[in-house]
């Protein structure tokens, strides 16, 4: 249903244009969940914005984004507007700012329905539908919350409203950009459960973006690991968690608190970290982008940019020349 190939996003800067996303390809089927993971600055959000055609003005995308057989990158703005909202919904990281503070939450859900369906539904029908959606995203006492303003709701409830807004038109694809990062852990679990149930009930596809491999491993059928604007590993989530082939994926995994020991306690002493930070676009090291932080880097890693390979079967791709030795 969603088929991205060779996507690159370049941003024009006074020093010339730099690529913030390069050579990203992925595919997502209806009812499936794809997790995109990486640190801040790895290009995850740019990938999401490029998919719906909402890149900042200075950025431009090349490649191909096929959605239901239509290339979104060549679509005109008016046609793109009809796809957004109606066919693709999106939720954002910060539920505090993702809702209009000057409009009641019920109306924010209803007006999306009114806008896209136009004359087919009246205001009253749209409101009834909005109320139904509020129930569906498990807002307690939806009837009463309908006329509340965003500042009167908690962060978790606001995120539920944002999900209801995105769901209003029954999109075929939902893009969730760090949907739980700003929420506390218990609320995070509720929101993830909700998203999971919605995917199962509606059969929509979900693209969930997170810096937290824990969130991704709970939610996603497939996982795409991004580093410095490039995909470095992609495959079945279970496969990636069990046999991480890229040193960066390994680093992310060992930086994740693990529940194991008795009583679900966190085992092991201090968590591992990946030293250093993601290099800024335009200041990339020669060769493999991860060399500066990679414990396994060799001279041949710095010699040239590694290609995307599938040494472990067609379903598991990696961008590392030493993948086989490291997993052996």
């Amino acid at each position, binding site marked *: 249903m969603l088929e991205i190939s060779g996507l690159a996003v370049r941003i024009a800067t006074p020093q010339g244009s730099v690529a913030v996303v390069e050579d990203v390809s992925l595919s997502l089927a209806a009812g499936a969940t794809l997790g995109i993971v990486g640190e801040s600055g790895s290009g995850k959000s740019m990938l999401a914005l490029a998919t719906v055609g*909402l890149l900042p003005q200075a950025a431009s995308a090349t490649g191909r984004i096929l959605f239901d057989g239509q290339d979104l990158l060549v679509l005109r703005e008016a046609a793109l507007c009809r796809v957004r909202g109606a066919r693709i919904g999106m939720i954002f990281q910060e539920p505090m700012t993702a809702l209009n*503070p*000057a409009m009641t939450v019920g109306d924010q859900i209803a007006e*999306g329905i009114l806008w896209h369906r136009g004359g087919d539904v009246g205001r009253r029908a749209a409101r009834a539908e909005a109320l139904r959606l509020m129930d569906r995203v498990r807002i307690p006492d939806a009837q009463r919350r309908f006329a509340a303003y965003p500042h*009167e709701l908690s962060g978790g409830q606001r995120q539920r409203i*944002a999900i209801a*807004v995105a769901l209003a038109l029954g999109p075929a694809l939902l893009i969730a950009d760090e949907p739980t990062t700003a929420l506390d852990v218990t609320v995070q679990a509720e929101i993830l459960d909700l998203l999971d149930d919605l995917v199962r009930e509606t059969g929509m596809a979900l693209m969930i973006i997170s810096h937290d491999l824990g969130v991704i491993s709970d939610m996603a059928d497939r996982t795409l690991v991004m580093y410095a604007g490039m995909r470095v590993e992609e495959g079945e989530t279970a496969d990636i968690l069990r046999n991480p082939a890229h040193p960066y994926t390994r680093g992310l995994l060992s930086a994740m608190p693990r529940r194991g020991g008795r009583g679900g306690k966190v085992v092991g002493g201090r968590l591992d970290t990946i030293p250093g930070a993601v290099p800024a676009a335009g200041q990339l090291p020669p060769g493999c982008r991860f060399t500066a932080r990679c414990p396994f880097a060799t001279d041949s890693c710095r010699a040239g940019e590694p290609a995307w390979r599938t040494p472990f079967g067609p379903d598991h791709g990696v961008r590392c020349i030493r993948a086989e030795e490291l997993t052996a």
Partner: protein
Amino acid sequence: MRKRARPARRFPPTLLAGGGLTGFFVAVAVLSRFWTPESPTRVRVALRLKPPLQAGLLGTDHFGRDLLSMLMAGAWNSLSIAFVSVLLGLALGIALGCAAAALRGLFEEAAMRAADVVFAFPAVISAIMIAALLGGGATTAILAIGVFNIPVFARIARGAALQVWARDYILAARAAGKGPALITIQHVLPNIAGGLVVQGTIQLALAVLTEAGLSFLGLGPAPPAPSWGRMLNDAQTYLGQAPHLAIVPGVAIALAVLGLNLLGDGLRDVIDPKLRRQRG
């Protein structure tokens, strides 16, 4: 739920004083359309230059016209011209500012530089230019003050709208497939309205002052329609003999401007969330 969540808020004294004063002038202006003690244009040579209380409450001018009646009718002229011209500037300014914020790029640059050019001319200068083209009168005053107000509101609207455009809920609205026009109406305007209302009130005060200045120069409503500015002008000649002729309209102008300014300050205290947070 909503009622309880919001703490009971006492209205600031500036708002009450400004609202009261402004309300009084508006009431007097409206009343003058139906009733004044005398006809404000009736000339009574026998009663010329009477001090207050000797003929009518506030005395008479050099034509024996009743000063209170002239003041009341003048209030209507002053306030209506100020109101219509600010409304004109508000509507066009907001349209321009919001369009600039929504479209960005070349349009924004052109609109804002044009605003700078208009802004460079004081209202009185542009009024003289417009009067040279159209002749004097109320329309000239409205156009001159209105045109002067466009860049004021365009700048404020653009600045506030740009802030709103950077918010996530705008991104969410765009992700929902809405175009810039709809986003401006649904999401931008309601969120910048507060500041614009405050500025509108303050611009009204400025407009009353400018209108008085224009009619003082003879660019306001044509005689015999009474106006505060021309009353002041007429009073110059008789300043020694009948100082009340200058004092009465002068005080009226000062109070009307004071009332509108207090109202603007009070509204700002109530509406501006940043100030509200500071006050705890």
